């Protein structure tokens, strides 16, 4: 295990060094990611600025939703984007190389790419999170801080699970699926706002299929000590980040199934 971690850090180090080769471009790309996210928040701010509070939600409260989901997504993208460049590897038969090495395929694919430029996105997510916390009067306790961290961690697991599933699908079909972008980026976009903004069928997708609501909407209610309109219990809200972890575990099992199913296309 320790050895695996050491190897992973080596992989990540190599990836980071290669990204820093084009220094000016790297800086601008990182800044670009930062700005792109700032813009999303500016447009949310502009809506609140024009229309006022919505259904009893303030901008600072929405900022908490936004901060949690974006921080989690940025961290997951940093670690997990290796799975993104995986489908072409199956297509081209390069996956065989990984299978020959005496290490787990999961470790090697995580090590394919460490996207340092996502720090731009991460910084923005954290900034919004800090800003919103500073503007909300939350009675903080150790349990609440732990829950906030758990929510972010659950989110990282959930998004990583999605990346793993995305890569796994390519064992069966070598067409990359735009559908996954819909649930990742679309999911981030959706869960930036309270779940009750959406129609029931849409809420169901992000509660039961891709349980993103469990890593920000539900735990945020505990942190804000707010009554949840859909009538879930506080115990469920506090435990919900666990679902993100379970999602990742299930995704990894499906991945293993996929690896066993794999037949090389290479020639």
């Amino acid at each position: 295990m320790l050895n695996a971690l050491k190897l992973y850090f080596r992989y990540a180090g190599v990836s980071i060094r290669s990204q820093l080769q084009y220094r000016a471009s790297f800086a601008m790309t990182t800044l670009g990611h930062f700005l792109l996210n700032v813009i999303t928040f500016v447009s949310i701010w502009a809506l609140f600025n024009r229309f006022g509070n919505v259904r009893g939600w303030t901008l600072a409260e929405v900022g908490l939703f936004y901060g949690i989901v974006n921080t989690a997504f940025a961290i997951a993208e940093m670690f997990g984007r290796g799975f993104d460049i995986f489908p072409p590897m199956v297509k081209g038969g390069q996956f065989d190389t990984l299978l020959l090495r005496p290490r787990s395929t999961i470790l090697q694919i995580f090590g394919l790419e460490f996207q340092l430029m996502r720090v731009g996105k991460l910084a923005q997510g954290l900034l919004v999170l800090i800003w919103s916390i500073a503007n909300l009067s939350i009675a903080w306790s150790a349990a609440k801080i732990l829950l906030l961290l758990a929510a972010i961690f659950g989110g990282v697991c959930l998004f990583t699970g999605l990346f793993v599933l995305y890569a796994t699908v390519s064992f069966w079909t070598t067409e990359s699926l735009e559908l996954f972008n819909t649930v990742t980026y679309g999911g981030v976009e959706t869960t930036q706002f309270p779940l009750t903004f959406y129609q029931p069928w849409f809420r169901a997708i992000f509660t039961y299929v891709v349980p993103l609501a469990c890593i920000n909407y539900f735990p945020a209610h505990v942190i804000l000590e707010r009554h949840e309109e859909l009538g879930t219990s506080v115990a469920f809200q506090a435990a919900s980040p666990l679902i993100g972890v379970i999602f990742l575990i299930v995704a990894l099992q499906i991945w293993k199934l996929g690896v066993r199913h794999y037949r090389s296309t290479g020639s």
Partner: protein
Amino acid sequence: MKAYLAIISARFRMLLQYRAAALAGLGTQVFWGLIRLMIFGAFYAMPSAKSAPMSWPQVVSYIWLGQATLMLLPMWQDAEVRNMVRDGSVGYELARPLDLYSLWFARSVASRTAPTLLRSVPLVIVAGLFFGLQFPASLAAAAGWILSMFSALLLSCAISTFVLITTLWTVSGRGITDLTGPCVWIFSGIMLPLPLFPEWMQSLINFLPFRGLLDIPFRIYTGNIPLNEFAGAIGHQLLWTAALILLSRWLLALGTRKLTIQGG
């Protein structure tokens, strides 16, 4: 001219091969449109929406048109030329007996119109039938919209060719491209219809070229820009297009003089 038309038609035919991608894109864009619709809907359900500078039906049409013509935006760069600069085959481009700027511009026209047409037609039908996209506000609005869409295409190509030329200076060719994205994203109106931004931002928004990409054509379509302001709005698009073309040509002349071809 014939050569450039041939380039456009060849690229067009190539891009039309990706029909499955277009279908998947349709699903994605309907999904995104619905997310947008529900978020804006929550805000428009508030009493404060009465004084908003755009009516709800106008916003709905604006959102769907945005999803339909997303591919027109100069955010997606033609990776081909970028890689040419990177691996040195841009040398061949220079050797062709064609004007380099027009060549790149023509490529850009093709790579924007083909996917846009492919995606927008089914999306407009779906959105019109089920999700509240309305017809143009009037016959004049329809005519103005077509004219303004065409100007938006030229503007988009002028911006993306300008960005492309700057890659002659940064080898990996990503930096400026990545900075253009955010500007386009916010100031074109794709994130948020531009009239909904605070009043104090409007003068900046009105000055920048990016509103010519989506906001002007869409507001003409929905009747948010009245008939007597058509000329000014379309003029804004064309002026920026001309300015960018001139600037890009000058930069290109400068760039090709000092260009180092990579590889050997």
